[in-house]
């Protein structure tokens, strides 16, 4: 992944979207951050369906940050769709959710999540998490075809 790749944030909570944008800003992540706020839109974006057909405007994401509890289609279903779509089957997906339930963690990994992070309540902890996310998933980690 490089500094030009798009990061797709799948998140329905307005506050969380703004806080994550703020954290990206503070940490100084230059990658374009695109937000979709329900499961259907996430699948459409990834598979270039419907209004997201134009790959120039909506480039294939190099990293997906995925909430689990979403309207219309759950994060698990989105994950299934990402993994069964050829162009994104190896795209890193980092689950970013409030749930620290063992069942969710197990389900996420079984369906091919690359990492599982629990959204911290404290803003400082969120900044720390996004910093690590940048250092590892954006700067260090190598992905296929990006």
């Amino acid at each position, binding site marked *: 992944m490089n500094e030009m790749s798009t990061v797709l944030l799948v998140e329905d*909570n307005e*506050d*969380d979207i703004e*806080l994550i944008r*703020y954290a990206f800003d503070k940490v100084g992540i230059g990658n374009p951050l695109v937000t979709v706020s329900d499961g259907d839109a996430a699948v459409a974006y990834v598979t270039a369906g419907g209004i997201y057909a134009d790959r120039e405007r909506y480039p294939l994401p190099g990293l997906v940050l995925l909430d689990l*509890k979403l309207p219309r289609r759950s994060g698990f279903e989105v994950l299934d769709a990402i993994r069964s779509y050829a162009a994104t089957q190896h795209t890193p997906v980092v689950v970013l*959710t*409030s*749930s*620290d*339930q063992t069942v969710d963690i197990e389900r996420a990994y079984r369906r091919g999540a690359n990492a599982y992070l629990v*959204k*911290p*309540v*404290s*803003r*400082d902890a*969120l900044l720390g998490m996004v910093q690590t996310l940048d250092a590892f998933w954006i700067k260090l980690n190598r992905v296929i075809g990006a």
Partner: protein
Amino acid sequence: MVRARSILVAVVAVVAAFGVRWALDPVLHDRAPFLFFTLAVLAASVAGGTRVGLMATLLSAVTALWAFVPPRGSAVPASAEYALEAASFVAMSVAVSLLAGRMRAARVRAEAGEAEVRRLNRDLERMVAERTADLEVANTQLEAFAYTVSHDLRAPLRGMEGFARILLDDFADGLGPKGKRHAERIVAAAQRMEALISDLLTFSRLQRIDVSLRAIDPTGIVRTAANEAHALAGPEDAIIRIDEPLPKVAAEPTVLKQVVGNLLTNAVKFRKDGEPAQVRVWGQEFDGHVRLWVEDQGIGIAPEHQERIFGTFERLHGQEAYPGNGIGLAIVKAGAERMGGRAGVESTPEAGARFWVELAAPKPAA
């Protein structure tokens, strides 16, 4: 139906006795005219009870008198000797019928009793299964509730904490000192609520998880917990001493960490104003058990509160003096109990408290 079959049994038994006696007639001649008929009476009374037995007795007596007691072809015996034999047969047969009837009645009663016991057992099993199903439903609902608590209650908290912090960091000038203080209160309140949710989840999870015990050396866990408690208080405010080596215990590492961690946090938190916390951890072994002690020189607990503090949401102090949510010791108690042990305290107010967790000593390796 049962009656008819019993009568049939009586008739068949008598006919069979007649047949056998008839077949042996060339050998026996006039001797023992009632031989085999006693067996017929016994068979009839066992199968059908006293009344069928008596019927078989009458039938046998008439048949034997007519066919085998001289003069043959007449029901009247030829001599007093034969009359006496007939009378003794009847008397014995009546006795056998009565006795067999009693036995049969007892057996019928016993079978009815067994059937009743079986029915009650089935009912009981059904009831247990129903209750278990109810409990499982309740448990699932509780898990769903815990999930909602962890997921949905935390989301607004992130907003409160996050945006209040952004105000403090990026808009401090506009806020002024008073505004800053208020924003700080929002942050602190959100953090308290987060700690509360997190402790509640820990507590509820403790009730539900499967705890599998194994032999562990608690020293590492106690050290980690001590470092965390130390960090919470600040280096000058806490002196924690661990008497190593600690004896091995049968425990579950995560649960033991929670239990010991909460005891150490409390020991550090409830220190006397202006004095550093002085905490000592040691182990005590006695007949198959191990007690881990956490002793402090803090404010102590009055005897009347020593039982109560292990309940949920029990607090003895205001938020300002000693912040907390009253779940810490409930987690200690539940955790110890889930590991098959218990927890308690000895304390003198103003002189400190000695909390203990008692666990089984691990079984020596064979």
